[in-house]
């Protein structure tokens, strides 16, 4: 969504005339060539990348004054909890809302560079299609398999230690930073064939997703639910998913995921746990035959 555009409450005179230069990798639609476009917006204190994009959308002119279509991007909560606004900022995958301009300019004073995530198909400009990420949650059955939503009394008793272990995993906002940084998670972008129905294409796309690496976020969610007293009732089904094509065995242990996670979720700990659980499960299955 394009957010509203507001001037800051007060801009000190010292910064008058100062401009922030921004270089954006744009793409008009899927399958089209991407191209760089430069923009400039007046500097204000305490800006974040979202407020820079708001000014750019409102102005709808490039740095050389040419009228251009407004830049498109995803955002919603603007407080780093909804997971919408992931992009590559100065080459680093992160949330645009918590990327403060003053910090970025300290790192790289000449300009700010914005690119869409590279592991997901571009929809337009900085908007990418992350449905594969959500498909990952389906693959590992990331839910508690309750009977129904009627009243059956409270949930299981849980110790503070278990809660403190589970809570950080449960703050995963599906932003996809861990996937963007992962060498094993590569872009899957099937194109609809001529004459192919929507349903047939969706099915083929899902098949392609399911052969690809499921990703650190989904592995971690599987471990979250396998540790829950009710969730673990289908622990084997999750381990089955984690040991089939695109499962935990694809993890190359680069550990990039944990380094870029904006919520500092202990993803590598989840991966290690999943690896051990998968081994135990494979051996158990061998003997159960």
């Amino acid at each position, binding site marked *: 969504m394009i957010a509203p555009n*507001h001037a800051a409450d007060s801009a000190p005179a010292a910064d008058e005339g100062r401009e922030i230069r921004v270089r954006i990798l744009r793409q008009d639609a899927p399958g089209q060539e991407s191209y760089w476009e430069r923009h400039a917006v007046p500097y204000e204190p305490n800006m974040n990348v*979202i407020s820079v994009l708001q000014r750019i959308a409102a102005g709808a002119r490039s740095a050389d004054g040419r009228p251009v279509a*407004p830049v*498109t991007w995803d955002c919603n909560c603007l*407080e780093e*909890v909804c997971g919408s606004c992931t992009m590559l900022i100065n080459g680093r995958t992160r949330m645009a809302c*918590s990327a403060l301009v003053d910090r970025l300019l300290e790192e790289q004073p000449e300009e700010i560079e914005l690119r869409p995530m590279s592991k997901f198909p571009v929809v337009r400009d900085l908007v990418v299609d992350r449905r594969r990420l959500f498909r990952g949650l389906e693959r590992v059955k990331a839910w508690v398999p309750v009977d*129904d939503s009627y009243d059956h009394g409270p949930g299981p008793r849980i110790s503070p230690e278990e809660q403190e272990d589970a809570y950080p995993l449960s703050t995963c906002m599906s932003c996809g930073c861990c996937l963007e940084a992962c060498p094993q998670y590569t872009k899957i972008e099937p194109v609809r064939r001529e004459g192919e129905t929507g349903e047939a294409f969706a099915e083929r796309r899902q098949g392609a997703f399911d052969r690809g690496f499921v990703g650190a976020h989904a592995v971690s969610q599987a471990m979250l639910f396998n540790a829950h007293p009710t969730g673990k009732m289908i622990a084997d089904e999750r381990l089955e998913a984690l040991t089939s094509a695109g499962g935990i065995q694809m993890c190359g242990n680069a550990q990039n995921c944990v380094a870029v996670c904006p919520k500092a979720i202990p993803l590598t700990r989840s991966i290690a746990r999943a690896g051990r659980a998968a081994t135990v499960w494979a051996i158990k299955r061998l003997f159960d035959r």
Partner: protein
Amino acid sequence: MAQPRVVVVGGGLAGLSATMRLAELGVTVDLLSLVPVKRSHSVCAQGGINSVNALTRQQGDSEWKHFDDTVYGGDFLQHQPPVKEMADWGPRIIDLMDRLGVPFNRTPEGFRDQRRFGGTLYKRTAFAGATTGQQLLYALDEQVRRHEVAGRVTKWEFWDFLAPVLDDTGRCRGAICQDLVSMQFRSFPADAVILASGGCGLVYGRSTMSMVCTGSAISRAYQHGAAYGNGEFIQVHPTAIPGADKLRLMSESARGEGGRVWVPRTPQDPRDPRTIPEAERCYFLEERYPKYKNLVPRDIATREIFDICTTEGLSVEKDRPCVYLDLTHLPRQELDRKLHGILEIYEKFQGVDPRDVPMKIFPAVHYSMGGLWVDYQRSATGGMEEGSPRNHQTSIPGLYAVGECDYQYHGANRLGANSLLSCIFSGLFCASGVIAGSQSSKRTAAEESSRLFDAALRREQDRHEALLGRRGSGDNPYQIHQELGALMTRVATVVRRNEQLSAAYDEVCALEDRWRRCAVSDTGNWTNQNVVFTKSLGDMFPLAKIILIGALQRDECRGAHFKPAFAVPGLQATDEAARRREAEEWCDRFASNTARWLKSTVARPGADGHPQIAYEDVDTSLIPPRPRLYGLVGADLIEEVWRERQQASEARVGGTGVGSGRPLAATS
């Protein structure tokens, strides 16, 4: 008849809980959302969710007291049966969310921990760190994903609700929606449409709300004839972090865990706040409200913070109004365990660690108590009748509203941690009635003539094309939105004055006129955010008018609606007899004001584009309205006088309360 098909618009707590319950009952649900449902605004709710619990119960708490706190905190402006039902469901809803895997904080023995929130003296609030909304939303998102895999739910994410489809009897038969990626239109025939589209904070420009909270869905329903209730009641949260793009919420739980609000007694004291001695600090909430201290209801805390900065000139900074919210006296480990999420937000966006340095905060627009008018059926026990098709139905049959976008639960002011409860409750509770309502219809939406949907779809297409084809005056929609937000924030938030409201109404009409002539800068038909925003901006004007006209006409103070010209001061006299006389007068004035103004504002779209306002009696048959006396001078005496009068009147009429008004039936 076959199982009905239902469209749910919005995938926050209310929309997801409705979807989950409907899917369980065998209904096929189309769930539409502007964003992937996991990214809905409910993620921003921080502090917790209220319910009487095992612990508070043993301290004398009950469902009835939760109900009483909610209507007293809301200044009695809500029909009581739905609120009673919600409070009764509280414990079951917390238990359910617990079963769904929400990682609520635990006591050493492994029970759910609770904290205290505003407007109550009990620790009623269950919480998961300081991201409770996020955790509740995820649990529901997971269940809905499960139903989606099983084929009972189809999600339509990045879709915009444009209009309800009404048949020749005025019944809702589905919706027209637009794909925000391909910009294609599609009609969704449905036996019922449930709006769960949240609040309308963007009418105020910057607020604590997310960017999707434009109010466009409810505005579109209103423009098609759905009545709108109590629009002027907008909650301004006492504590938010000012920002250029957004005002970020700083949860009430910071105060619930012991946070203290203060300002230096010396205006704009330049010293480091940590070095200012206790004696030179003014803990104004604690001084003025010795009973509730920092946890007075939100409308009161907001006005105090606003006043101390504007009227009393004690803002911490000179150019920017703000006060200190101080957590630095609390143990770090405890803070991390219970408030980590909000401390992280402050740290990330302000670059200062609030464990070491007091935070600087100021009030911000936060929640809309008002929303689409919805009906309910009263049960024999004074609650809401489960399974009645009237529950949560708007004035358009077949069109329902739940969550923040209905007007039902919070009256003139919402208590903290009650919104998560009302959202989940209304979503779950409405489902059985929605099914009963759609089965009572003579024919299904699927049997409806396709001409009906084609015509509705074409209307929306034409509007869209017209917007793209505008050759405008050069006026920029973002500029117009900025002006609208600034205007609304200036006149229709904490303090309201008739001359300003009336002038603002004309200004909004002028802005709307400019909007009609503005042009979009992107005329393409692929992921065109520019045209989607411009369309939603157009739908903000009817809401702004409802808010302004409702506020203008309501000549009283009630909850979040404060007009200094109609404020009733506390007792002034020092002499006992005179004081008693003043208390009697105070109560007379309260009684006459109740008779005149204890009514819901109900707005309907007028033919001339101006809202037509009517007033509806409030069902206060369970708890008779009483003066809301938080911190008022002479409160004890006023309360005493009021109680004597109540007892006398009960003796006269044999025990029933006053004002047992019946709600309006839905007009058909």
